[in-house]
């Protein structure tokens, strides 16, 4: 059946042909060229974010229990999931770059001038919305970076006007948690897209209302319609940018840190590159001056951007006729680039954790029959080396101590149980394996014996290298304050040193070789 009558009917009812003609046949000023594809690229990238975002929400779960694992599933289990998340992740950076390039093009061509002030101002709102999208998207994977970047963001908000109120609204609860994640998710997928749609439509409407500004110097040539002349350039530019984006997403996996751990004092949080300048700025305004960096300077920059068409009222569009505007943007650019470079310089990579004696002991403990009964190749629980402890350390520890407690039916109960220290050692070992800490380094036989004693007994009460229990003193640097003689006496029978000591005597549990190894190890901890 011919399609013509159907389209004729559709046009008679909707007038779509006139609408299409209005969209495509607009006459453009002569000389409009490649400079004017930046807005279309931005619009296209926003479309990519929308489409990939919709598909991501089909697999993402916005709860602290499942967010991280659902993102990991997208990356590792979902067909094309790595590419999908890569497009969304790198697309965010591409959009920030495209928005900045578009803004600079508008500034360079003086396109913000009368009568396009409102177009410019809606553009500034769009830039802020894009940054808000980036910020709210941060938290969703619920990994270390997400948690700590959001902690910093909420605390930045506290230093502004009505700080506690704003921070409370951003946090959604008394602490960062499920309520925070849900409201940031809600903002990212409902509130911000709705605002974005309103301002994109306004921006495009205003652009059409006043027409494209065209080259700085009017050219004497016939004006051409948007389609096919400019639309072809737009399409080519969009295809090129999309190809680069797909290439980036295919070559580099979008990063996913470990599960958020609010107690981790070793993770060095650093934001994405486009917020790094602001993050760095916070270092230079100590104490009561902090609001200058959090609210003052960013507020002035945004205010200046908004007011630009009213501040620069000169009629000329050539940049050399607007030295103050050129100087202002140059200063802003230099400032942002310099702060970003300083931020990068001050960002030590989060290194894989090193092998500690406890982790070494864990490597031995996981070879225990009680573990390998299930956790082996082809076993019901999967090999330990392949496991990711997605639950919190308490859960893992409880499971290691007695698997039946937390996974009923997982196995027949075996004789005996692990000490708390052994369980902690296993967790420590699994963390190293998960963080790709590399092969176990070679140590002396005596050090190996000491590691096993630390894991079996000491770590049940003491902290070692940031891991272990905290019901007794931290032993990480015990050698600074106690010598070998004292340690030997104390470990053998603490009541001989201090009658009120609460630590049990270990002399009866340890052989002479084991005691010697342990004392030598502890005395060397300085």
């Amino acid at each position, binding site marked *: 059946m011919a399609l013509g009558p159907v389209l004729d009917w559709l046009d008679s009812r909707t007038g779509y042909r006139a609408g299409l003609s209005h969209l495509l046949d607009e006459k453009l000023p002569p000389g409009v060229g490649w400079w004017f594809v930046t807005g279309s690229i931005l619009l296209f990238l926003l479309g990519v974010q929308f489409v990939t975002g919709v598909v991501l929400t089909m697999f993402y779960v916005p*709860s*602290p*229990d499942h967010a991280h694992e659902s993102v990991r599933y997208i990356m590792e289990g979902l067909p094309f999931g790595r590419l999908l998340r890569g497009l969304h992740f790198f697309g965010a950076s591409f959009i920030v770059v495209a928005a900045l390039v578009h803004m600079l093009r508008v500034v360079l061509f003086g396109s913000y001038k009368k009568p396009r002030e409102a177009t410019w101002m809606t553009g500034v709102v769009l830039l802020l919305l894009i940054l808000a999208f980036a910020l709210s998207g941060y938290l969703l994977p619920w990994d270390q970076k997400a948690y*700590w970047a959001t*902690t*910093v963001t*909420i*605390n*930045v908000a506290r230093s502004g006007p009505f700080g*506690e*109120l704003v*921070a*409370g*609204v*951003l*946090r*959604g*609860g*008394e*602490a960062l*948690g*499920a*309520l925070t994640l*849900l*409201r940031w998710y809600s903002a990212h997928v409902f509130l911000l897209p709705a605002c974005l749609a309103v301002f994109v439509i306004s921006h495009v409407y205003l652009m059409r209302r006043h027409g494209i500004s065209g080259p700085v110097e009017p050219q004497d040539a016939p004006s051409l319609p948007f389609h096919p002349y400019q639309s072809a350039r737009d399409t080519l530019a969009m295809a090129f940018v999309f190809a680069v984006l797909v290439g980036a997403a295919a070559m580099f996996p979008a990063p996913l840190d470990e599960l958020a751990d*609010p*107690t*981790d*004092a*070793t*993770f*060095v*949080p650093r934001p994405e590159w486009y917020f790094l300048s602001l993050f760095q700025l*916070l*270092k*230079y*305004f*100590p*104490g*009561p001056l*902090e609001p200058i960096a959090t609210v003052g300077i960013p507020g002035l920059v945004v205010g200046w951007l908004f007011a630009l068409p009213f501040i620069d009222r000169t009629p000329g569009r050539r940049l050399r006729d607007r030295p103050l505007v050129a100087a202002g943007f140059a200063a802003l650019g230099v400032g942002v680039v310099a702060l970003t470079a300083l931020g990068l310089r001050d960002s030590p990579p989060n290194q894989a954790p090193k092998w500690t004696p406890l982790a070494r002991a864990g490597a031995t403990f996981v070879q225990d029959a009680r573990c390998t009964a299930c956790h082996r190749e082809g076993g019901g629980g999967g090999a330990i080396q392949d496991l990711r402890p997605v639950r*919190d350390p*308490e859960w893992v520890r409880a499971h290691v101590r007695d698997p039946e407690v937390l996974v009923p039916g997982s196995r027949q109960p075996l004789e005996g149980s692990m000490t708390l220290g052994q369980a902690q050692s296993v967790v420590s070992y699994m963390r190293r394996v998960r963080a790709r800490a590399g092969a176990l380094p070679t140590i002396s036989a005596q050090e190996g014996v000491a590691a096993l004693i630390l894991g079996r007994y000491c770590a049940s009460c003491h*902290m070692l290298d*940031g891991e272990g229990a*905290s*019901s*007794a*003193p*931290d032993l*990480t*640097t015990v050698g*600074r*304050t106690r010598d070998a003689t004292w340690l030997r006496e104390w470990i053998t029978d603490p009541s001989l040193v201090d009658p*009120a*000591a*609460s630590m049990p005597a270990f002399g009866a549990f340890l052989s002479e070789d084991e005691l010697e190894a342990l004392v030598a190890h502890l005395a060397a901890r300085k």
Partner: protein
Amino acid sequence: MVLGGAVLSPGLAKRVEQWLPAGKIGDLVPNQPTAVMLRVTRQDGYAQVVDRRTVFLIRTSETQVTALDSTCTHLGCRVSWDGNANELVCPCHGGRYDRTGAVTAGPPPAPLAAFDTQITDGDVLVRV
């Protein structure tokens, strides 16, 4: 009002403080910050969660213990004890505190928050 109340109220709710055991005073080395992890139960919307919160205990005399929050007062990152420098150090913007929680360097605007403590039968209790 309904929308505003639903959006605003959870974030502004005051949490109920509770006394939690944090170890034995006899196990603390005098004037040496010891990191202790407290487990604080709270309602987080639909879920009841247990926050793991690190507190530094410093035994200042035979009967007194100071408890310092590990949250940097600058922007909320987690500080840790640097035994070589004898300071509490924040990894984010380089804030540094001495063992009393006072700022010694960097951008933090205030000392580390201190929690109330009490000693009962040798047990250190901290109000968080």
